[in-house]
């Protein structure tokens, strides 16, 4: 099977071969022919035209009505040809936009980058995958010298570029906070005021903030309307929801944030996530909370980072490789 050229001769030959043999090989070559034509930006109406000309050459006595009917068919293909050309233009534009946004996404990644700390006695797993190129989810680790680990996980209502712009502001604000350990409730309180002042009122941000004390293995946390977290009891092999009451960031400057405490036993895990994890969809069906926990349990025996990665992989496939929302999952696992 030699390389095909798009020209009348070639089409005519293939057509003639098919009319004679009606075998699959000729049809396979028809397919290859059309793919090559597409590579050369040949519009569908031109294929029809080559078809007509080939028939005229092979069958000069072809009935007149056939000729007319093909002229009519050609006319219907002109609009499709235009759509085809627009398709090619859109494709180029899309690639351009994609590369542009990927530059912006890179800027964002640099801006929002957080280092996963190495902490004696604590395994940390964290994954955050944007549904589109830019991430509207955000997580951040702060570590101090006294064995405290601060973890923020947040979700802007909205996706893509606007959400990312908004997230950058949050990051600017958090960076300006004093480095020394603060209570989760206090941190959310100050952030709330910043967001309320600076961000458009149509944008909301939910955040869960936790402070892990590596000395006493207590986890203090507050939530600004964020998806609840989970505590995994490795002995009972059960999950327990951990949540604290508090308004979404940016709604009211007066909001206060409840602070709760949970002791973490050996081998147990604290799980924080965004609604992109719990609201995965399979086709039209939202998966149930229990399914998410079931899957986490299934991979709980792995190192924390592998756990979050395997869970992501599972839901990525379940959703046909198209995330509907940014997906962020953090696991803190106290080593045995």
């Amino acid at each position, binding site marked *: 099977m030699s390389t095909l050229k798009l020209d009348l001769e070639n089409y005519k030959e293939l057509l003639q071969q098919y009319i004679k043999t009606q075998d699959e090989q000729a049809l396979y070559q028809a397919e290859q022919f059309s793919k090559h034509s597409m590579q050369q930006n040949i519009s569908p*109406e031109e294929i029809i035209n080559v078809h007509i000309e080939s028939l005229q050459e092979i069958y000069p006595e072809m009935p007149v009505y056939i000729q007319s009917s093909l002229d009519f068919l*050609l006319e219907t293909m*002109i609009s499709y*040809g*235009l759509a085809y050309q627009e398709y090619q233009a859109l494709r180029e*534009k899309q690639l351009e936009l994609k590369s542009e946004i990927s530059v912006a996404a890179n800027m964002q990644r640099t801006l929002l980058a957080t280092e996963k700390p190495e902490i004696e006695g604590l395994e940390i797993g964290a994954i955050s995958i944007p549904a589109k190129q830019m991430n509207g989810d955000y997580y951040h680790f702060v570590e101090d010298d006294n064995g405290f680990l601060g973890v923020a996980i947040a979700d802007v209502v909205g996706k893509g570029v606007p959400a990312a712009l908004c997230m950058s502001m949050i990051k600017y604000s958090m960076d300006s906070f004093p480095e020394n350990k603060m209570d989760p409730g206090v941190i959310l309180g100050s952030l709330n005021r910043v967001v309320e002042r600076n961000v458009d009122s149509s944008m909301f941000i939910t955040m869960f903030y936790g402070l892990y004390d590596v000395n006493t293995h207590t986890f203090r946390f507050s939530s600004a309307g964020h998806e609840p977290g989970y505590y995994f009891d490795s002995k009972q092999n059960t999950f327990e929801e951990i949540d604290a009451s508090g308004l979404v960031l940016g709604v009211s400057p007066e909001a206060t944030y409840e602070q709760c405490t949970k002791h973490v036993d050996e081998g147990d895990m604290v799980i924080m996530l965004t609604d992109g994890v719990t609201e995965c969809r399979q086709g039209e069906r939202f998966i149930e909370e229990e399914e998410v926990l079931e899957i986490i349990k299934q991979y709980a025996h792995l190192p924390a980072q592998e756990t979050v990665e395997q869970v992501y992989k599972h839901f990525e496939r379940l959703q046909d490789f198209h995330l509907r929302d940014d997906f962020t999952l953090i696991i803190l696992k106290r080593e045995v």
Partner: protein
Amino acid sequence: MDFQSCVNIKKEWDIVGARQLGRDIARKIGFGTVDQARIATAISELARNIYLYAGAGKVCFEAIEDMNYKGIRIMAVDDGPGIKELNQVMEDGFSTSGGLGAGLPGVRRLMDEFDIQSDEGKGTDIKVVKWLR
């Protein structure tokens, strides 16, 4: 001097008349079947825009001859409301006729040269050319 023939566009039927005249001229100039069909589609689009948005106007045709090339020039003129957001109208995927028409980007693709002038309240003036290859 080239001879110029026009078709007034007032009712949908006139679109067919404009196509017919344009196709005849294109055939005489020597355009093949595919190009005739493309030219007719461009005429449809131009005439339809007049019919739908300007109410009345005309589409004119001219056989042209450069030093080496022959071609057809089509002019669509109306004194309707004009086009406000020209750059949007010229963008792919935003055709005014709601997906039904190829829009002006389609006309530009079907032809070789495209020029448009439109002022709000003063109507629209579109000139397109297709060269015989």
